[in-house]
């Protein structure tokens, strides 16, 4: 039955259909997980109310066919996110504020975008809008709405709330919103406006691709040097968005399909990873990589889920992350085939290189995470006892990990057939050589990762012996290899060192810069308000003179 005829405000098609399905799955898993994880926390009523409201509003966003309705629900999600993060613990308020300012600010821009769309098209009904990007107003409208998508999904330069948020928000919230729902919504809307509402042109496609490529590389570089598990995952949550934006930016059916498939895959493995970080936090009380180690024996189920999800996010076959990345690469290659002009070719190749290199670096940083958390030596050097978390906490990540495998091995038969290919028309896999090429690309990615890994030097062969250093006994537990120093070398690498230092200071954080500018303006204005009555009367007089001149 056609739902559109029942109510013009809503519309269900394949794209929105599977996104809603995914939202439902993730919501259920998060609630199951929270039942145990949040058990001893306070303010549970507001927590669950906000989770459920978020799930409902997200589903309705995807369902809606009217821009105003979409705007209302979309903006409402910002409020629930704020309330979910801000649970009265230390340093949560600052990050909740930052999050809401970025999200709410981008919502305001989206409002402007919707206003311009209405001005240009005369309707709010989404399936009736089809705008060419041939004038500056249409471009402005597209950019305004795209900013909202970027902020929600976490593409650069609106990503800066995600890493902190991942670290300080409760784990179920991070798993629910940062890992899955916000990505689904952001990329869904980006796909919607890029595919349906606007007719993309080459310049805008290249813009999207560059944003995507930048996001992949910059975020993964930041992830490499993190010391906190959740923060590291947060940077990956940003980095992976780059692939989706890149895929949609290619404008080729296979690339778009890859981008959308990657959105789904990313939500699956990223949620699994956040769940495992929650398990680790629950068991050890910390997610600081320096203080972890050797948990694989203690928490085998969590370890397996984390391992599969890590391999999947790094794009290792045969997991699902591989399939979607492979499709994005194909989109880029087919783009190269039709490139006209040298510059376009260079841009495409650059993006392809960024995507592949990013994949390698992702693997590298997850080697670090897995090593520091699950492998390596445990903190006190003793073998930990098997103490897996409650089933409500290991089942969701394990379930997600198994979906990773299924979606990887049977990619064509299950997810692509039912979800992705019906949503994007005209997907053709390139030639017969695609399997070989993609395998090759993955190998290159892996090699690159290994190469970078080797920059630090190969770990010596494990040989347990008593340490002897000039008469002093060396405490092995204190001098263990934690894994956090794996990539310290790149941190000291000339130009990179400066970039890292400035990045930590927030130089590339649009929020910090805007804040600085705002308070500078404010202090200048405050200086003018000196509290002296005659000054104020002079202003009045000046204002009056100005009005006389204007109204003469």
């Amino acid at each position, binding site marked *: 039955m056609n739902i559109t005829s029942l109510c013009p405000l809503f519309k269900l098609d394949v794209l929105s259909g599977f996104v809603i399905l995914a939202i439902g799955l993730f919501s259920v898993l998060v609630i199951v997980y929270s039942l145990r994880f949040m058990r001893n926390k306070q303010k549970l009523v507001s927590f669950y109310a906000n989770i459920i409201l978020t799930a409902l509003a997200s589903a309705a966003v995807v369902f809606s066919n009217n821009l105003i309705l979409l705007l209302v629900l979309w903006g409402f999600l910002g409020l629930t996110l704020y309330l979910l993060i801000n649970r009265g613990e230390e340093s949560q308020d600052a990050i909740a504020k930052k999050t809401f*300012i970025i999200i709410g600010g981008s919502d*305001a821009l989206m409002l402007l975008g*919707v206003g311009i769309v*209405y001005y240009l098209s005369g309707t709010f009904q989404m399936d009736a809008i089809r705008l060419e990007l041939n004038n500056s107003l249409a471009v402005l409208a597209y950019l305004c709405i795209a900013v909202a998508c970027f902020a929600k999904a976490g593409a650069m330069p609106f990503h800066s709330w995600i890493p902190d948020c991942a670290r300080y928000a409760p784990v179920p919230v991070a798993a629910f919103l940062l890992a899955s729902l916000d990505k689904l919504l952001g990329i869904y809307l980006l796909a919607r406006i890029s595919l349906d509402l606007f007719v993309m042109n080459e310049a805008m496609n290249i813009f999207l691709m560059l944003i995507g490529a930048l996001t992949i590389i910059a975020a993964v570089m930041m992830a490499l040097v993190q010391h906190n598990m959740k923060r590291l995952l947060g940077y990956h949550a940003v980095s992976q968005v780059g692939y989706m934006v890149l895929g949609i930016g290619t404008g080729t059916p296979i690339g778009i399909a890859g981008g959308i498939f990657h959105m789904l895959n990313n939500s699956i493995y990223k949620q699994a990873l956040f769940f495992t970080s929650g398990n680790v936090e629950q068991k050890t009380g910390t997610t600081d990589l320096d203080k972890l180690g050797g948990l694989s024996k203690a928490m085998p189920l969590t370890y397996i889920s984390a391992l599969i999800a890590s391999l999947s996010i790094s794009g290792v076959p045969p997991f699902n992350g591989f399939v979607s990345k492979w499709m994005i690469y194909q989109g880029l290659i087919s783009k190269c085939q039709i490139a006209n002009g040298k510059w376009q070719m260079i841009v495409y190749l650059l993006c392809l290189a960024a995507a592949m290199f990013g994949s390698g670096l992702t693997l590298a940083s997850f080697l670090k995470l897995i090593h520091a958390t699950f492998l390596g030596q445990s903190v006190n050097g003793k073998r930990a006892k098997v103490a897996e978390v409650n089933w409500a906490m290991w089942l969701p990540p394990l379930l997600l990990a198994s979906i990773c495998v299924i979606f990887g091995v049977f990619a064509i038969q299950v997810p692509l057939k039912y979800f992705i290919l019906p949503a994007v028309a005209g997907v053709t896999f390139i030639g017969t050589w695609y399997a070989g090429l993609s395998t090759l690309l993955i190998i290159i990615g892996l090699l690159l990762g290994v190469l970078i890994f080797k920059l630090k030097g190969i770990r010596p062969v494990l040989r347990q012996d008593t340490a002897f250093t000039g008469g002093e006994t060396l405490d092995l537990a204190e001098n263990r290899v934690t894994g956090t120093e794996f990539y310290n070398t790149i941190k000291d690498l000339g130009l990179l060192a400066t970039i890292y230092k400035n990045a930590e200071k927030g130089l590339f954080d649009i929020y910090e810069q805007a804040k600085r500018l705002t*308070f500078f303006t*404010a202090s200048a204005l405050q200086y003018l*308000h000196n509290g002296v*009555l005659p000054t104020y009367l002079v202003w009045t007089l000046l204002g009056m003179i100005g009005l006389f001149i204007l*109204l003469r």
Partner: protein
Amino acid sequence: MLPFFVVIPLACAFLISLLGKRIKNLSDILANLGTLALLILSLYSIGLVNNHKILVYKVGGWIPPIGISMVLDGLSSFMLVIVGVVSFLVTVYSINYMERFTDKWKFYTLFMLMLAGMNGVIVSGDLFNLFVFLEIASIASYALVAFGTEAEELEASFKYAIMGSVASSFILLGIAFLYSYTSTLNMADISLVLSIKEPGLMVSFIAVLFLVGFGLKAALVPFHAWLPDAHPSAPAPISAMLSGVFIKILGVYALCRVFFNILGVSDKIFFVLTILGVISMILGAFLAIAQSDIKRMFAYSSISQIGFIIFALGIGSPLALLGGLFHLFNHAIFKSLLFLNSGAVEYSTGVRDLKRLGGLNSRLPITGFTGLLGAMSISGIPPLGGFWSKLIIIIAAVQAGYFMFASIAILISIVTLAYYLKFLGFTFFGKLDDAWLKIKEVPWAMRFSMIILAIICVITGLLLIPILRPFLQSAVEVLLSGREYSSIVFGAIR
């Protein structure tokens, strides 16, 4: 029934000043009954306007333009409702809040006088009477700002009184010039005369005088400097009244009435209004974000929001006028709510400095939650009321081709969100300071007012649905009718 809008508060003021000192609780009861009666009357007036479009009351039976008249049309009844709702809830709130001060009856006397002045401004059909009522309201408010009689309050009140008097003298001067030009003081009649006479330089001159005068009352930049001192210094209920309704009635309403219905709006005036609006919007917001005193932040926020309203009125399209008036209504509700919240915080902690507060959500859950709703509404977060008016204004601005100003308005709304999050974060969220472990939620009357205002905040979006829309629409139509106002008024007399 028109005179009752002025008579009731005047009578209350008189009775309270006469008996309030002698009979305990009489002032509370009388003031609350008075404002409740006004609220009911104002709600009843919506129905009247719906049926008759316009009601003219001839004082003493003299036919205008010779006699004095009172006029109730869509715009007046819209404003009366705003005054009615806010003043009733504020008096309820004051029952508990004003216990902290001595001489509660003096407070109520002044309050009722101010109310009489505001209602008088709204229903007056005569320019000179409008001035008289405006002065009554202003003088009462000078006294109310100084009600705490601390040094800071007296200083604020003094500045306010000076700037207010400047405003009043400009307005009076404008009225005098207008009288010399048209030989009449009745608003409808002036409008009639002006439409016949050639619009000369004289009218522009008068327009500037009125713009400065009412601009001062409405606290538009650069005429705003008194407000950030005056509004925070008053007791919280008065701050709520001043920021919530006072500047809107004496400033925005009077400005609308004079320019839209009497002088007529030219493109130049529209342009000047948008410019003034945008400047106020920007300056108010940037100044607000730097404040650490809650009420001062809200006061600057009022400047910014009034700028937003004036900007919408300056666009001048029907949709923009609807958005502007809608925002005016919303702002009255959420700004009074926020000031009452700040009052509640001050009531329980004795502090209004953001840096010393924090985590109060656990101690003052109702204040915290209503404060959240108010702050979210003013920041334009859906689905609360403020979002809808912002949406309409932005769409109207884009439709009218003001892309630049629309973008500025959007950026300012981001700043607005930022400083309200600052307020929420420093007050209600975060970690609870040990000093506030023992404080309790505020008494019932204060809670009642805040809850009702918060509920209105949430449901104002409903004013856009067809059944309730006439309430807004009839006010917009008055503005749209422009100079036809005179023929409508004279038509109603016959």
